[in-house]
């Protein structure tokens, strides 16, 4: 995108914010007309807090903001929206039980004589949904029937429908597939051409060249650097965000694959998982690619016994082939899982790092049933050190940790459990670049010690960085397989293929 030319629309000067510790320290920001100003930073850098202050969600402790010529000090999200500053939230605040139309227009339902004007509501909702490429959906359907990705689009449609001068997007693509992200970028470009200014919070380096007019980097609540345009060397950004040099080269070449550690045969679960067979060998990270709704999460959950399978078998190592009826059986057989929604399914946010790290069937205990507390503390400290978890102590609640550190806690739990196979569902979603590298390295070390990993990711860059092989899913089936050296185009093409199973494809050479 071109460099910004417009006048300053929104100016923030010397913004500071502290909860118990300072989150933002005298940060200033200029947003010009018709630009996409990207806020980059690792988790905890303060970028989301800054966005929330602009959007009226939290008040700043110090500093001034001006919107055009007038002071901007919104006391609420609604006040900011009235002034033309609209924020799309990272944590979606929609109502699953209500229809799409009601979700879109909840705070300004068209009414006549106090009754909701359903015809007008329907007409407006169709327009709003078309704007984000969801025109084929019936606005009367309940939101609950949509997946996470489409819900995010509904949330964005809600924002786009407001007359806004400034649109704030906080990691909008975290839950979107590649195609949905493309669609979103198209909309952002169109809005920008209409004169809207966009504040775009992300930590995904690959999005910058596609969307950014300007990039501001934050680290530990302070402004670090500004770049004009989106073509910034990734190494430099990682260095600025982390404050240290980026590790050279991604995951090292793998050890030769060994025996089969996980064999899945003819696994089925309704229409979401259809006759899936695959093998993961020791020393191998196998990737699962596919669009949102292709069945990646469902496949991992079914293998793990979290959802019941209707047919098929799963075998771990030299064990017996059969279906795992519960996660308990899966864990006993030597499988661990990093669930997609780690905050809800993976962790107890209010509990300490110690409790979370040892949340296992066989946690350290002395006499039957009684927890051996010194042994437990030692085990938790070992995980903290081994996983490089950044926490004040093992007693800190995991809800206070950054996404990357939370994921390290879950990972550490499974490694401590001594499992042979790890099922990872979007293991680095919402994780900053530095922690992402650490998690990939830890997974690589795990397979080099004889483990096997099956990893689902919507991010091709992640699959490329860590996977030895990639399986592509569509419509609940595995439709293609690629060895190292695959191209984005080939995988994307395979993912878009219909549910018709195709012959297994091999991309020849290795990197």
């Amino acid at each position: 995108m071109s460099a910004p030319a417009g006048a300053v629309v929104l100016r923030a000067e010397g913004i500071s914010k502290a909860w118990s510790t300072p989150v933002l320290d005298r940060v200033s920001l200029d947003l010009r007309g018709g630009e996409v100003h990207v806020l980059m930073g690792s988790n905890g850098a303060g970028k989301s807090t800054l966005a929330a202050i602009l959007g009226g969600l939290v008040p700043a402790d110090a500093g001034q903001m001006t919107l055009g010529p007038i002071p901007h000090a919104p006391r609420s999200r609604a006040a900011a929206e009235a002034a033309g500053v609209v924020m799309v939230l990272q944590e979606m605040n929609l109502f699953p039980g209500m229809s799409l139309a009601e979700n879109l227009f909840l705070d300004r339902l068209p009414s006549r004589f106090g009754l909701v004007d359903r015809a007008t509501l329907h007409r407006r909702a169709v327009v709003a949904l078309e704007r984000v490429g969801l025109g084929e959906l019936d606005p009367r359907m309940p939101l609950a029937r949509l997946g996470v990705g489409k819900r995010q689009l509904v949330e964005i449609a809600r924002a786009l429908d407001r007359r806004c001068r400034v649109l704030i997007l906080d990691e909008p693509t975290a839950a979107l597939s590649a195609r949905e992200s493309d669609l979103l970028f198209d909309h952002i470009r169109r809005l920008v051409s209409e004169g809207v200014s966009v504040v775009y919070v992300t930590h995904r380096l690959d999005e910058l060249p596609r969307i950014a007019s300007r990039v501001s980097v934050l680290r530990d609540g302070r402004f670090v650097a500004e770049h004009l345009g989106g073509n910034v060397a990734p190494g430099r950004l990682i260095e600025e965000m982390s404050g240290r040099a980026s590790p050279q080269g991604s995951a090292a070449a793998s050890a030769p694959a060994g025996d089969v550690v996980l064999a899945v045969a003819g696994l089925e679960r309704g229409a979401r998982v259809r006759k899936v067979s695959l093998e993961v060998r020791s020393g191998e990270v196998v990737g699962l690619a596919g669009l949102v709704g292709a069945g990646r999460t469902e496949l991992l959950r079914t293998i793990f016994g979290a959802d019941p399978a209707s047919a098929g078998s799963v075998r771990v190592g030299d064990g017996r082939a059969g279906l795992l009826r519960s996660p308990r059986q899966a864990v006993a057989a030597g499988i661990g899982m990093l669930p997609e929604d780690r905050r809800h399914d993976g962790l107890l946010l209010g509990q300490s790092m110690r409790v979370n790290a040892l949340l296992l069937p066989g946690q350290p205990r002395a006499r039957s049933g009684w927890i051996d507390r010194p042994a437990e503390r030692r085990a938790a400290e070992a995980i903290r050190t081994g996983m490089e978890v950044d926490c004040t102590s093992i007693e800190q609640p995991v809800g206070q940790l950054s996404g990357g550190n939370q994921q390290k806690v879950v990972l550490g739990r499974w490694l401590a459990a001594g499992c042979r196979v790890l099922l990872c569902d979007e293991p680095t979603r919402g994780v900053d670049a530095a922690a992402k590298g650490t998690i990939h390295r830890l997974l690589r070390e795990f397979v080099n010690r004889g483990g096997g990993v099956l990893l689902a990711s919507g991010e091709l860059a992640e699959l490329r960085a860590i996977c030895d092989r990639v399986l592509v899913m569509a419509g609940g089936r595995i439709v293609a397989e690629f060895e190292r050296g695959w191209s984005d185009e080939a995988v994307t093409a395979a993912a878009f293929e219909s549910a018709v199973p195709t012959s297994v494809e091999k991309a020849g050479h290795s990197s």
Partner: protein
Amino acid sequence: MNRTRLGEWGVLVFVWLGLVALFGTLADHFLSATTLTTVASRLPALAVVAAGMTLVIIAGGIDLSVGSVMALSGAVLGVAIVQWGWPLAAAIPVAILTGALAGLGTGLVTVGLGIPSFLVTLGSLEICRGLTYAVCDSRTLFIGAAIRPLAQPMPILGIPPTVPVALAVVVAAQAILSRTVFGRHLVAIGASEPAVRLAGIDTSTPRVAVFVLSGALAGLAAVFASARLGSADPNAGAGLELAAIAAVVIGGTSLSGGSGSVVGSLLGVLVIATLEAGLAQLGASEPLKRIVTGGAIIAAVAADALRRRWEGERG
């Protein structure tokens, strides 16, 4: 035990001492052996029921049936002693077992069918009350001298033997909660059941077991209550579930599960009992007593909510 928890207990002890001082100043005979005996005799039943309720609530459930279960256990106790002529030592285990079986039924239905325990225990509350009337033919059973000694003040100490038993139960329940794997799993389940299940931990057994425990403690409470009254009343325990929940909440346990303590609930019981005894001595009318007690519950919950909000802003 971490520092936050000790701080919470400290606040409750402070509040309780404040109440004692307040009533001691206002009422002439509040600080007397009679008051101690009165409070001490009523306390044990509520304390053990609140202990069971604490564990249930921490695990993310609720048990509305404790009052009826207590009445049912009391009826079985009365029938065993009066009609079958069983000795007390044999009748007490049967009463506790009755409560445990009622809890087992509740737990199995809740976990097996995946129904919220609020609804299941709303049903078992009625079922157990009905069973109680059936067992004792809708009449109060006079047990008399066979059981009274349990509730008589012991020499020197001035408190009945039920008090140390109840305290032992509270200490044991707190130890289970904070020192055992079972207790750890209860807290974890209350915090996020899916996360615990996906960690490969069996969640069904602890979820059923906690209702069995709550039922058994309601059975023990029936023994205490029957000893105090010398009879088994089919209408006993009406509203007991609300008093227990109030004590648990005042004691700092989160109604949404995942955190709390049994010792806190005991302090909650003390606060409620002291408030009631003190108001009675001041000659407060029944309506006023209930209004003040209700206000105290809301004040406790409001203080807790404000504290959380404050901590949330810090974190």
